[in-house]
């Protein structure tokens, strides 16, 4: 996902505005182009209107229409990688197929930029490896 640097387009699809902005900043620091959407419908609409595809999508698996959106995007890009957002202390959603999960921090977690950058870089490596299997 990370090669060549800066060429990967990452969509962050979630309704937690703070988390979306935070991930936008961290993925940008990890040399990706990060774009936000508040719903699956909006993500598809924005992709079309901005004429942008997706290399990686980080998505809330509880959203309505998530499976249909991923199917549509997978047809457009066979190498699409998917990361699902997991809420703390909740079981992982297995209905949505993904290469990795990213746990949303809870209110009591300290938010460390270096740690999140490390986490996102590791995630990018993991999804790349998982997609190669």
């Amino acid at each position, binding site marked *: 996902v990370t090669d060549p640097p800066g060429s990967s387009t990452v969509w962050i699809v979630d309704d937690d505005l703070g988390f979306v902005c935070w991930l*936008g900043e961290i993925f940008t620091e990890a040399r990706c182009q990060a774009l936000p959407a508040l719903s699956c419908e909006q993500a598809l609409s*924005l992709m079309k209107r901005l004429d942008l595809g997706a290399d990686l999508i980080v998505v809330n698996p509880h*959203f309505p229409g998530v499976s249909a959106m991923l199917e549509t995007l997978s047809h457009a890009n066979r190498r699409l990688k998917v990361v699902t957002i997991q809420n703390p202390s909740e079981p992982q959603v297995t209905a949505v197929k993904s290469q990795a999960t990213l746990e949303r921090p*809870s209110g009591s977690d300290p938010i460390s930029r270096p740690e999140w950058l490390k986490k996102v870089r590791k995630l990018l490596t993991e999804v790349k490896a998982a997609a190669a299997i």
Partner: protein
Amino acid sequence: MSPAPVLSKARPVTDQRLHCRYPIRLELEYRVLNKGRAEQLGLGRTLDISSGGVLFEANDSLPVHSRIQLLLNWPFSSEGICPLKLLIRGHVIRSVDGAVAVRTERHEFRLAGVCSSNSRLSGEKVGSRMR
């Protein structure tokens, strides 16, 4: 064609998420509204953003309980373009020592096209979320 605003179907926000504040520094414009009209305009910078609110620094003190609009560029996209703007509407709940806390009631991304100085507080709505 713009999709209909996204209003309520996502799962409810949990208490844990309400308290998670992300330290994000973004430039913003604000408008304090009174009966729908801009009463006070200014520039600021976010200190943190959570699922339910924004804390930002501003030179002026803002009236508590007033309605406010915040406009931010989405800065994390291609070089040379900033196609998205984030519009937040809410109420000022605290304004102390240059730090203004806003409870978010609604936020939405807007298509803004190529950045320009006259694109402020304009743009094409692409979706929204009510809290």
